[in-house]
């Protein structure tokens, strides 16, 4: 079972040219910050390395940070055999968010990424089937969980507000 600092050290040793950071000032969980187009390579390393063996993606969620003009994606991953877990964070520009998909590493990321696309508009490159999942397929009024989302007045003849 490894601690967050040891996992971070292993990552830094194997990816020396990457700009990785470990933030431990959060009240409860340390986070490793990663660049948006390197997340797939790092995930594959975390999945295959015999000392880490992160075989399960628990959660993938998007957060809209309006003040910093960024949209972040948090990855919670865990190892069921070695019993350790870590949180990864990826931040991209709010006006054109693009992140590499991790479906080639963990197949369960498929629907989580579709939901992040549906709610925030984050485009995941190399995703097998990126389309809306919870909202109707022809919803044109935007991405609902963004902080500046406005409700449409009518949808297919039905009045939306109360």
């Amino acid at each position, binding site marked *: 079972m490894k601690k967050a600092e040891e996992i971070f050290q292993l990552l830094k040793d194997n990816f020396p040219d990457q700009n990785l950071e470990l933030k431990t000032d959060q*009240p*409860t969980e340390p986070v490793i910050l990663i660049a948006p187009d390197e997340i797939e390579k790092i995930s594959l390393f975390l999945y295959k390395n015999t000392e880490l063996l992160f075989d399960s993606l628990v959660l993938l969620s998007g957060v809209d940070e309006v003040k910093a003009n960024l949209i972040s994606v948090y990855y919670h991953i865990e190892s069921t055999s070695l019993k350790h877990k870590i949180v990864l964070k990826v931040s991209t520009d709010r006006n054109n968010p693009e992140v590499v998909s991790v479906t080639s590493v963990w197949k369960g990321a498929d629907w989580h990424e579709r939901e992040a696309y549906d709610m925030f508009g984050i485009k995941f490159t190399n995703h097998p089937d990126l389309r809306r999942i919870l909202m109707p397929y022809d919803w044109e009024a935007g991405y609902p969980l963004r902080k500046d989302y406005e409700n449409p007045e009518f949808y297919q003849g039905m009045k939306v507000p109360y």
Partner: protein
Amino acid sequence: MSQDLTKNTKVSSQSSKIRTEEMILNMGPQHPSTHGVLRLELGLEGEIVTKVIPHIGYLHRCFEKHCEAMTYPQVVPYTDRMDYLASMGNEFGYAVAMEKLLGIEVPQRVEYIRVIMAELQRIASHLVALGTYGADIGAFTPFLFCFIDREKILHLFEITCGARLLYNYIWVGGLSHDIHPDFVRKTREFIKEFRPNLKEINDLLTHNRIFIDRTANVGVLPIETAINFGVSGPNLRGSGMKWDIRRDDPYSVYSKLDFDIPVGKGTYGTTGDSWDRYFVRVLEMEESCKIIEQALDQLPEGDVTSAIPKRIKPNVGHVYGRVENPRGELGYFIVSDGSTSPYRVKVRPPSFVTLQIMDEICKGYMVADVVTILGSLDIVLGEIDR
């Protein structure tokens, strides 16, 4: 058996030169056997399924947007309504995550009562799962028997907090009211009556020849696939892996209670088939009875509302808290920006993750087996769509 049928259809079509095409069949949002509003698009070659595409979102009720507009205590009734068959579990998960973020400790009496409520809720939820599974297969009587026992549990919940289905009982920092003076005695009576009823359900359904023929060797889920997709709960335990949040990442007072984790062993077929997933649920109900009895014996005195904060205003940060719901691992990812209402609440529903594997495990079986497999996964659309 399913693989042989595929082979036969290919041979016969080649030999008689009939032009066959793939047919798309829609198991629409209104269907007696999809547990809720789920649309399954089945690609069929004759009677054999080649692909399954689930379409969800018919019950998307904007839970996460509501959380950003309410204060922290006001979120609790909305968490109830996500997985409406396990409301105590949902509230428990939210309380565990929030108490981790705030760093508060609750009195021991609160912890024990929460565990008793969560385990009673587990029994009630599994009874619905088994009853409706039997009804899907075609056996209507177990449905009625399961609902009789469920009514007794709902009566226990009703004398505690006044509601039958959606409770708003487990608050951040404590509970809304203390338990009724008769609760302990009535719960012990219920457990005493429930154990022989469980044996009756086993005789009716579990070891029934027709049920075994329909569920054994159907929908086999290998362990590596399950972990890669992130499946948890009875579905993962049915494939043979002993993974339970109550044991592997303990919360509340589960580390002080003694219980076993049942796994699937392939008794009547392959390990990880629908029968194994179903039987794990039956065994879990027995384990829950054990946990409730121990918790009732160890229940201390105390005040259940003393640790509830007057105003919840956590520090800036984020937390991920999880509990073992009857359907798997329910997690809450809460991001706080220092104000009285959450900045972002993301829920990790166990059924959302489980429904993705439908395409993997349904290939090569017949249309009637799709209903069997879907019933054995035990999904609730309220938490998939939130």
